[in-house]
């Protein structure tokens, strides 16, 4: 394993020191609880937005803390969801009197830990807590009898849009409704050229041949649904979009298109892939209202990408365009 780290056990803690050193103009860090806070949290009267999850997906979520997006991000160990104590502490700290939304990606661990935190918050703090669970990954079949689809790329778009709505002063009920709507009309699919290596594990999570790719991967190094010979970018784009487009009918509806890199894929390839995605959407008659291209929701050093499409009406586009000032996403200010 080759990484720019000291001890594998200290990766998250030391990275948070770097975040604090780099961005103390906008965030503050509770190192004991591994929470990144918006510097001026709690914002009085504003719905507080919290997310969190395992580390290793940077800039998600810590890089999305700041004006117009999250109030706090709880950072777990690498690929391990944070613990309820963190979410409890963050919930109490960001409540500006308007209640708090927990933005949870659908993984058994994340869901259970956030659930326990919400139970504790209800019992102990008097803060009104609501949750939204994202589950947009079409690589996974949805069913009542399984863990359900994973939460992936839509989470980033949701945090931005809901962040703008909260900044605008919408109340918790409206925010919950908006968040559920976004999750309902967004879908994602990912693929990998290489495995990632979890620092504590010390070796690649899966082995993969020099001419193979994994299709349908998540963001935790879990292998995908199928392994196949590596294909040209245009075929990969088609392969990723096909299950998305057959899960939701996007025809005629403008979308926010999100071409995401998994950490080890350079921008030159992501733009090339985005071109293929844009071509396919063009042919399908799906207008792209806005887009985001880059490494925003990563899986450590994994080479690969994911595509997310989110149906976008005027309200969503307006909220997307609203100012945001976080280390990971910034515009309008």
């Amino acid at each position, binding site marked *: 394993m080759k990484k720019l780290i000291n001890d594998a056990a200290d990766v998250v803690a030391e990275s948070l020191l770097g975040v604090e050193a780099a961005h103390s103009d906008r965030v503050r860090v509770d190192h004991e609880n591994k929470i990144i806070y918006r510097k001026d949290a709690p914002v009085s009267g504003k719905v507080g937005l919290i997310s969190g999850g395992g580390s290793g997906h940077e800039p998600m979520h810590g890089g999305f803390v700041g004006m117009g997006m999250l109030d706090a991000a709880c950072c777990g*160990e690498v690929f391990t969801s944070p*613990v309820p104590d963190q979410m409890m502490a963050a919930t109490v700290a960001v409540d500006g009197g308007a209640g708090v939304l927990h933005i949870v990606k659908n993984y*058994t*661990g994340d869901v259970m*830990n956030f659930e326990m935190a919400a139970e504790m918050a209800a019992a102990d703090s008097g803060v009104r807590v609501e949750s939204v669970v994202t589950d947009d990954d079409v690589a996974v079949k949805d069913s009542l009898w399984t863990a359900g689809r994973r939460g992936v790329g839509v989470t980033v778009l949701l945090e931005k849009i809901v962040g703008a709505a909260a900044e605008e002063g919408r109340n918790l009920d409206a925010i919950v409704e908006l968040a559920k709507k976004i999750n309902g009309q967004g879908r994602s699919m990912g693929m990998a050229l290489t495995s990632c290596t*979890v620092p504590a594990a010390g*070796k690649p999570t*899966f082995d993969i041949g020099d001419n193979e790719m994994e299709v349908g991967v998540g963001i935790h190094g879990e292998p995908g649904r199928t392994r196949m010979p590596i294909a040209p970018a245009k075929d990969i784009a088609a392969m990723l979009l096909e299950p998305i487009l057959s899960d939701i009918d996007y025809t005629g509806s403008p979308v926010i298109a999100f071409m995401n890199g998994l950490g080890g894929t350079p921008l030159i390839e992501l733009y090339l892939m985005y071109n293929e995605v844009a071509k396919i959407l063009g042919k399908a008659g799906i207008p792209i209202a806005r887009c985001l291209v880059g490494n925003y929701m990563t899986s450590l050093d994994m080479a690969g990408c994911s595509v997310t499409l989110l149906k976008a009406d005027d309200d969503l586009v307006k909220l997307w365009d609203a100012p945001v000032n976080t280390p990971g996403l910034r515009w309008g200010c």
Partner: protein
Amino acid sequence: MGADKGGAWMADFAEQIHDNADMLTDLDRQIGDADHGSNMDRGMKAVAALAAADFPDSGAFLKKAGMTLVSTVGGASGPLYGTFLMRVGGAWPAEDSAEGIGAALRAGLEGIIQRGKAEVGDKTMVDALTPALAAYDAAVGEGTQAALDAAAKACAEGRDGTTPLVARKGRASYLGERSAGTQDPGATSVTMLIEAAARTLA
């Protein structure tokens, strides 16, 4: 004395986890996200750092051990193991008895099922614990040691039985058919827990 038994149980389990952390992570690497061993080791180190002697009884100590796991492990195993031990501690008998310990363990398993909603056959720790508790109950008339021994044996069998299963819960479920052929990490660690119980609780 107070929490002697609970303390011994957790100390033994912590040692097992530490010695087998790489193996557990490696199982999780194959069908999950390569962290089960380090998750459990982090948590059980924190539990091992508690002073069992400071607690009035095993029940109180095990409750605290569960809370400690909830606060330190994260992932799926944190809430599941944490809930298990909090429930076991909450139901711990005032007087040691085979029936009392069995009831406490069953309360723990019910907590896991309530929290994780897994059923037998989903390829999780429930597949090891469920037959373990059934075997315990069947042997409970022969006393605590015999019941725990029977439970440990059945637990290991349940664990082995997870290998061919296709996962329907947890991260391994994302692999679909490809999850078959690897032993479930959580079923593996929970067997160490019950084996530790058989060495310490009677």
